[in-house]
């Protein structure tokens, strides 16, 4: 992890809508050159957090700063160096895509450049169509092209690929990697876990308005279980009694089983297994999806 000053710093952020506590405790930071994955179930507070960062909503407690400046007080100065793509892109219905891209660039003091043209071509957008006739995916392309041709330091993407086809999704990922190489910071909120797994340096998991976990994927894997499918010469009848072993299923007789094991007990379990004379073994590291499921299905605290 870089020890530079963070681009984004959020601490104890809170937001209430009437009696409903949308955000109870949001805490994370993003450093320069980092792609941060922001994941959580629907309604967990991802978009609310992002809207506070954009100065659209005013927080009820805690602090949030971008480039060291308060997101509510200095929103205009911050936005000068920021680009944002929402999940649900709504555009001015009687303007063409080309006009909107140019307008969004101008509003940040940027210009329509050769890069913009290249992006329009790469995303295969017809810029002459009126925004009202665009499909969801095409509206997203308009916002993405404007964001990628903006020369910003911090990029916020809120489920940006939910309407894109796989080809354009690929293109999105390449573009984000280019931003990363150029030392820019990215906040990526997404439900497409493969995308997050592939691109993000660190991940924050939000549930019910609270950040429940942050760290690199590797860090998080230590917190969770590896699935092991093993076949041995000697009987495996006593595997279930070892500490840290869960969900044992017998595959074929006593010699072929599969189970999950806690990361901290892995060494002990492996020693036991090799003592039983291995025939075949496959170990699957936990996927983000496993992590996700584990956090989401946990008991829900009362939010009221």
């Amino acid at each position: 992890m870089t020890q530079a000053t963070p681009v984004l710093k959020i601490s104890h952020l809170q937001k209430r809508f009437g009696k409903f506590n949308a955000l109870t405790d949001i805490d994370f930071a993003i450093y320069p050159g980092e792609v941060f994955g922001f994941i959580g179930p629907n309604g967990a507070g991802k978009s609310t957090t992002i809207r506070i960062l954009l100065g659209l909503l005013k927080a009820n407690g805690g602090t949030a700063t971008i480039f060291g400046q308060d997101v509510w007080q200095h929103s205009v100065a911050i936005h000068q160096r920021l680009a944002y793509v929402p999940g649900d892109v709504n555009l001015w219905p009687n303007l063409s895509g080309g006009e909107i891209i140019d307008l969004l660039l101008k509003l940040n003091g940027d210009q329509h450049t050769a890069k913009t043209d290249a992006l329009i071509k790469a995303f295969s957008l017809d810029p002459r169509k009126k925004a009202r006739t665009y499909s969801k995916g095409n509206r997203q392309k308009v916002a993405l092209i404007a964001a990628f041709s903006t020369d910003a330091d911090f990029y916020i993407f809120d489920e940006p690929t939910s309407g894109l086809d796989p080809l354009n999704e690929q293109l999105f990922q390449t573009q984000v990697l280019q931003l990363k190489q150029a030392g820019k910071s990215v906040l990526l909120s997404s439900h497409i876990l493969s995308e997050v797994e592939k691109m993000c340096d660190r991940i924050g998991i939000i549930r019910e308005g609270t950040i429940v976990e942050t760290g690199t994927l590797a860090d998080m894997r230590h917190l969770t279980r590896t699935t092991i499918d093993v076949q041995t010469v000697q009987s495996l009848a006593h595997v279930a009694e070892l500490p840290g072993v869960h969900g044992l299923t017998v595959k074929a007789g006593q010699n072929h089983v599969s189970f999950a094991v806690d990361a901290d007990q892995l060494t002990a379990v492996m020693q036991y297994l090799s003592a039983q004379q291995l025939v075949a073994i496959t170990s699957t590291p936990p996927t983000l999806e496993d992590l996700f499921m584990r956090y989401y299905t946990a008991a829900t605290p009362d939010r009221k």
Partner: protein
Amino acid sequence: MLKSLVARTGILCRLNLKRDGLKLLIWMVGLAGLFTAIAAKFEGIYGTQTALNTIAKTLKTPAMVSLFGEFTAKMPYTTATIFATEMVVFMAIMMIIMNIMIAVAATRGEEDTGVLELVRAHTVGRLAPLLATAIELTSLNFIIGLLFGAGLQLAQLPGANTTGNWLIGMGLAASGWLFGMLTLCLAQIATTASETTMLSYAIFGGSYVARMVTDVQHPKLTWWVPFGWIEKLDAYQTNRWLPVVCMLLLGLGCLIGAALMSYQRDLGAGLIAPKQGRLRASASLMGPTTLLLRQLRGTLSAWVIGSAVLGAAYGSIFNTIGDLAKSNPMIKQLLGTSALVAANRLIVKQFIAVLAIVLVVVALIPAIQIMLKLVSDEQKGILHQLYATATSRWHVWASYTGVAVVTAGIVLLAGVGGMYAAGHAVMTTPVVWTTYRQVWLAYLPAMLVMVAAASVLVGWVPKWRYLAWGWTFYGFLSLYLGRLIDLPKWARQLTPLGFVNQVPVHALDWSTNWWCLGLTVLLLGLASWGYRRRDLAQ
């Protein structure tokens, strides 16, 4: 075949009722209450024969004919015949506005938001949504018509009879219904809700002007204008049902036309093909203000042209109005030429004072609309794109407010200018431009207060923004009908428009102007403060 086309219309009707229920109820109670209250009050205002004769004389003047239609009541005048003359055109306007608003929202509105797509994906007939809206409008108009009739029965105006009461009720219902059906038809031709609204109001405005011109110059020709049929009921006298039949037949024709077009066309498309847009933004598109103007340029020019045409139509009858000698040749000898010219001019000025109210309301509508667009654009999520760039809240708020304020001024100027131009062309001794400028100067500050108040609602309580429409509507009602229904002064002064003292008959009062401008500045300061500190819609 037919059955499958209209499958599940019943369910859609219930759904519409759930969606529009409150809106329909407010319209019903509001219109029926207003109508009945005025009817009940009428006997008190026009109870004596002298009062009736005086008002009859006023209503016969071309100025009043242009506002309320041809005066057809015969001697001896009764409270009921006066009521029938004064009220039908005004109530018909209200009925038509209601029908256009509801019809647009239920057809193109649902299509624009994509709700219709969701509905049509189920086992719902191709024509069912249209039919459900038609049924909704028909029931609404019929019920209001019944309430009108019942209200008149209750009011028991002297000279009224049962047939006349129900004729007025059903006549108003039919004229509203006709424009509702026409709007359904236009909704198939246009491509969006706002286009449909614009087309509907263009036709409505055109018919209003046409009936006014024919009423003043050749009342028989009013039969050719569907909006004019409502004046031909001749209630409490010959009680003619023919106009009602005409309205029903034409309305039915519109409905059939709408159904045929709706059957043919694609979902989301219209007969007017959308044009291709620009490849790149023009240099002039560079910030919130130019963005707003770019979006509104079509609508704004339509309002300016419409207002100018309306003003010109009024101006074109100034020679008929301002000619006392025409109605009474003796008067010229009695007064002498110069005194006659002065008397004529005073009549025209009085007329201008009354008409100014119509032009003011016409200019207020787009101004308030733009002000409230700040909230609707926010709720559609369009503004989020803007706020993610280096654009401040203040800048966006100021753009919308500024454009609204300027629109109010320009649309009113177009109306007053149109009136001046046409009046200048037809009159032998025209009223000078200064007079018209006074009208503009007198009303503008009062209008700005109303726009600023709408801005406060937008900044602090966006949920309650429709109150701005209620206030505008009340302003129109209290000024258009206020004197005729003997509304007390304090009630007329519930809107700042009520403080403008009949300019140009009386002189322009700068003290009113100054406090109006001061109040405007205060309200705008309050509004911008509120808008900068509140949360934007999710």
